[in-house]
Structure formats: structure tokens, C-alpha cells
């Protein structure tokens, strides 16, 4: 069995001249929670739709659970739970009727889980979908994905409309009921705190390309922000350097490993090291994706270092 739940190689999706996904290489290990991050329009939803066969790839290849997305779509869909970005289901049906519509499609469907999660998430099962609040609509989408016995859950903006209590419950359910049984969760989200809480791996996408794919633990243990002061312009180049932010005579370097060695190199170039700090996911994300344009104050913003 393939060790990867999702594996794309040079995956591309073009809409005319727009390159929504442009040579994307993803490796999502089985049994992991993978946070798929990116700014608006970065290509996250297009990637998800391509993986599920809703869009046809313009180039490259993609395998989900070892099945090719071009040839074995039904096998993929049978094993994949999907919560779409828009959280829209059939407006005239009640959640109970939507469950009835869905259950016949999935051999591993569990009505016991339906009862359990409907109770846990407080889903109004007999109100028509159109009359539900956004939060309840989101709960219904999760209910369907969680009860189908999927090996892979693809959740696009999973916490939209959910209150903090239900969000907390959902994250616990994902980890305790699904990941613990070897299932994979692919989380496409802007909620970095939620991703940081449960993810094992993160992938950051920008303009259809993967900027960073790493273990979250690697970020916690090895990634560092080095703040330094300089008097004359210094040019630094290192494979460990992924982002630089300059503000007046101060500069912040985001490095992926060997922070002390990198700091020594800065010192050797005449810079004064002010501090070396651990970073969180948000700082890495902002460091990689924030545009290199002056901020409102007129000071320079972050400049991502070209690979």
C-alpha cells in the first residue's frame, strides 16, 4: 500500500491564461493531519476540486489513497469524505433526509455514528437545510463526512460558522475518532490556530505552487526568527533562509534550521544579533506569503526570498 494518502506531481490546473495550480507537488502521509494553507486565490480549493475529480487537471498527476484521480474517481470518492467550502446542501431536504440520500453510497456508512455526532454537535435533524444557520449547515456537512467511514477526510474551511465549543469538539473528534484509527485528515483552512492545534504536517501554497511542506514539529523545533541590526547593507544567502523582513535598520530572518550558525554568519558580516526566537505557524505563513510592499506606515514589509 502506498504510504501517501495524497500525492501530486507537477499538478496543474489552468483557466485560460490563469494558472490556478501550477506544478504542485504534495505529499500527504497516511494517518496524518495535513494543514493545507494559502491566501485567498492561492489555489487551495482548485487543488481540492482537482483531487476529487470536480475539475480535470491541465497537467501533472495526482493519486489519492493510491488511486489515480483521472481513472479511479469512484474508488477515491467511496473512500473520501469531503466538506466543501460553501457548505451548501439540498435546501428542501432535512439533515435526516440528506443522511438517507447519502448512506446508500458508502459501504462503511455508520448510522450509529450519525446518531452519536448528531447528538454531540447538536444538529437539528428534522429542520429543512435552507432554514438552518450557517453553523448548523457546517455541522451537517461534517456529519456526512464523518459517518461515511472514509479513509481520508478533505475539509475545506471546516470551521466556518461554528462556535468555539463546536470547533473544539470537531477538532477533538477528528483526532480522537479518526486520526487515531489511521485515517488521514486534509485540512484546507485560513484558521492557522486550528491547524496548529491538530496538524502534523503543513503545506503552504502561493500562486498555485507549494512554498513550504514540512512537519509542524519541525517548525516548532528548528524554525527560528533572528532579529538583527545593521548599519550597512548586507546581502545574505542561505538555503535555510526562507523570509526576510526589513524595518529601518533592523532586519528579521526566518530560518529553517541551524539558527545559531546563521546568526554567526550575520555577526561575521557586521550585524548585531538582537534575539533568536522560536516561531509559530502564523509567523511562518506570514513570512512566506506577505507581499513585499510597504505597509501603511510607509515602512518596508516582508520580502520573501526567492528559492
Amino acid at each position, binding site marked *: 500500500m502506498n504510504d501517501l494518502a495524497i500525492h501530486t506531481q507537477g499538478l496543474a490546473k489552468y483557466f485560460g491564461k490563469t494558472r490556478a495550480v501550477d506544478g504542485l507537488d504534495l505529499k500527504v502521509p497516511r494517518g496524518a493531519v495535513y494543514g493545507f494553507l494559502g491566501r485567498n486565490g492561492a489555489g487551495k480549493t482548485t487543488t481540492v476540486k482537482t483531487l476529487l475529480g470536480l475539475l480535470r487537471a491541465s497537467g501533472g498527476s495526482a493519486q489519492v489513497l493510491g488511486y489515480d484521480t483521472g481513472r479511479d474517481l*469512484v474508488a477515491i470518492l467511496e473512500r473520501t469524505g469531503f466538506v466543501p467550502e460553501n457548505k451548501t446542501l439540498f435546501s428542501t431536504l432535512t439533515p435526516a433526509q440528506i443522511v438517507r440520500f447519502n448512506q446508500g453510497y458508502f459501504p462503511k456508512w455508520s448510522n450509529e455514528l450519525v446518531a452519536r455526532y448528531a447528538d454531540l454537535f447538536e444538529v437539528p435533524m428534522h429542520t429543512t437545510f435552507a432554514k438552518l444557520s450557517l453553523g448548523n449547515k457546517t455541522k451537517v456537512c461534517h456529519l456526512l463526512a464523518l459517518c461515511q467511514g472514509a479513509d481520508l477526510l478533505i475539509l475545506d474551511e471546516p470551521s466556518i460558522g461554528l462556535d468555539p465549543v463546536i470547533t473544539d469538539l470537531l477538532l477533538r473528534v477528528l483526532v480522537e475518532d479518526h486520526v487515531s484509527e489511521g485515517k488521514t485528515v486534509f485540512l484546507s483552512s485560513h484558521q492557522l490556530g486550528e491547524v496548529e492545534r491538530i496538524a502534523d504536517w503543513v503545506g503552504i501554497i502561493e500562486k498555485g505552487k507549494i512554498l513550504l511542506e514540512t512537519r509542524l514539529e519541525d517548525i516548532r523545533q528548528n524554525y527560528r526568527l533572528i532579529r538583527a541590526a545593521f548599519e550597512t547593507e548586507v546581502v545574505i544567502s542561505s538555503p535555510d533562509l526562507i523570509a526576510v523582513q526589513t524595518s529601518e535598520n533592523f532586519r528579521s530572518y526566518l530560518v529553517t534550521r541551524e539558527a545559531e550558525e546563521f546568526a554567526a554568519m550575520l555577526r561575521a558580516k557586521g550585524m548585531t544579533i538582537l534575539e533568536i526566537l522560536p516561531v509559530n505557524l502564523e509567523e511562518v505563513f506570514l513570512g512566506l506569503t506577505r507581499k513585499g510592499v510597504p505597509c501603511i506606515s510607509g515602512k518596508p514589509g516582508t520580502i520573501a526570498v526567492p528559492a
Partner: protein
Amino acid sequence: MYLWKAWHDCRARVGLYIVATVTIAVLCGLGVIAQANSYHAFFMLHPYRPQAHAGFYNFSFEMDIPFWTLHGTILGWGATWNFANFPMFWEVFGFGSMAMLLAALSLGVSGVGKEYGAGTMNSVLTRPAPRWNFILTDWIVGLTGLVIILSGLAFPLLPFLYAIHAKGPGNILAGLPTLWVLGAAIYGLSHFTTLVTGSASKGLTLSAATLLTYSFLPAALHEWWHMDALLKATQWTMGAFDWDAWPLSPFNWGATIFWLVVAVGFLAASLAWITFHEV
């Protein structure tokens, strides 16, 4: 499964149209009796009043086929009489054509195509089933509903026919297959246009525009530019639905098969669309 949802989405319309067609049929059945009574009254005053009444019963008149055949020339009927020749029997299919048109359009736009506009196509197409499955299921449910609806035009007439003539209903049922086939073609049109436009209302508008164009463009070309070819062609395709000629005319296989081909064409187009279209 989608079969359940497809039926759930259109069952209210099927019920409504069944009520409509059965009502049309019952009213026409009552009309038949009224017409028979009026003819009876006419012949009661006529010197050729029948003396033998074999085969007819239940109402205030008694007639038989030999009588009508004998006196057909009085009313200008040259052919052998059949009780299905009462004008109300023709009209039931005239009204029925309109019911068929509305039912076929209405059922067609309730197909899977409307899910694009509702934003739920993602949810449908991520169910683990081949995409053609959704189209075929729609067609099975839609056409079954249509057949039941249109049968509601003919079968409620049977008791009226038996009521006035012991020999039975004649060939009143022969009009049904042509209606089914034309209904399937119009269902296919509205199902396909809904799929292409991604919206029930847009699909309905485009279907209605197509039907109006088909109905009026050939006549307009004939009137304005004396181009007859298209008019002749469309008249040929509608030959099977010339209720004034039916049921004395032979069954129009050519036109019926033409509409069957059109229906299959729309089915194929819908299958191709859902297979290759991206969401």
C-alpha cells in the same frame, strides 16, 4: 441514493400533473356523454330514427355501430364509425398535448442540472457513482412520471367508453405512445438546457424559446419569404399529433421515430455534458 432524491424532487409535480390529466380526462368523458346525448336528441327528431339498439345501454339513449355507420353521411362522416371519433375524444389529446408540454418541461427542469445553480453540484458529483448514473436516474424517474401523467389522460376515459358502449373503448389508447415519445423529447430538451445553463429557470426559458422557435419560425419563413421546406419538415414531424386525423389515420411511425431519435439525442448530449463539464 440519487434515485430517492430524484423522485423526492419531482414527486409533487408528478402528483399535480396526474391530478390535472385525470381531471381533463374525466371532464372529457363527461363531455363525451353530453355529446352522445345531443346526437341522440338529434336522431330522436330525425326520420331515420334507429329501431334496433343492440349494444348500448345505461343512458337515456340507445344506439349501435351499424346505425352510426348507416347514417354516417348525415353528419358528414364517411368512415366507419367508432366511438372514439366523438370530438371530445380528440380534444382529450389536444388538452393532453398541453398537459404533456407543461409536465415534460416541469419535470425536465427538476433534474440534476438545477444543482449547479443551487450550489450543490459539488455534493452530488462527489458521491461515489459514475456521472452518467445521475442523468440516467433522472430520465428513469422523469419518464416514468411522464408516462403515468399522460396515461392519466386516457385510462380515466375507459369507464365512460364502456358506459356508453358495450363493445368497449375503441382505439383510444393508440394516441398514448406518440404522446410519450414527444414528451420524452421535450423532457430531454428541458433537462439538457437546465444542465447547460445550470439553472431551472434559465433552462425553462431556453426550452420555451426553443419550442416557440420550432413552432413559429417555419411558418414565419413560409409567410415572409415563401420558404416552404422547413414548414413541410416540421409539419411532417408533427404528423403523429394531428388529432383531427387520429384515430382513423394509420399510426405515424415516421414522426414517432423522429421524436424518439430527438429524445435519445438529448439524452446523449446530457450524458456527454455531465461527463466532461467541470464544476
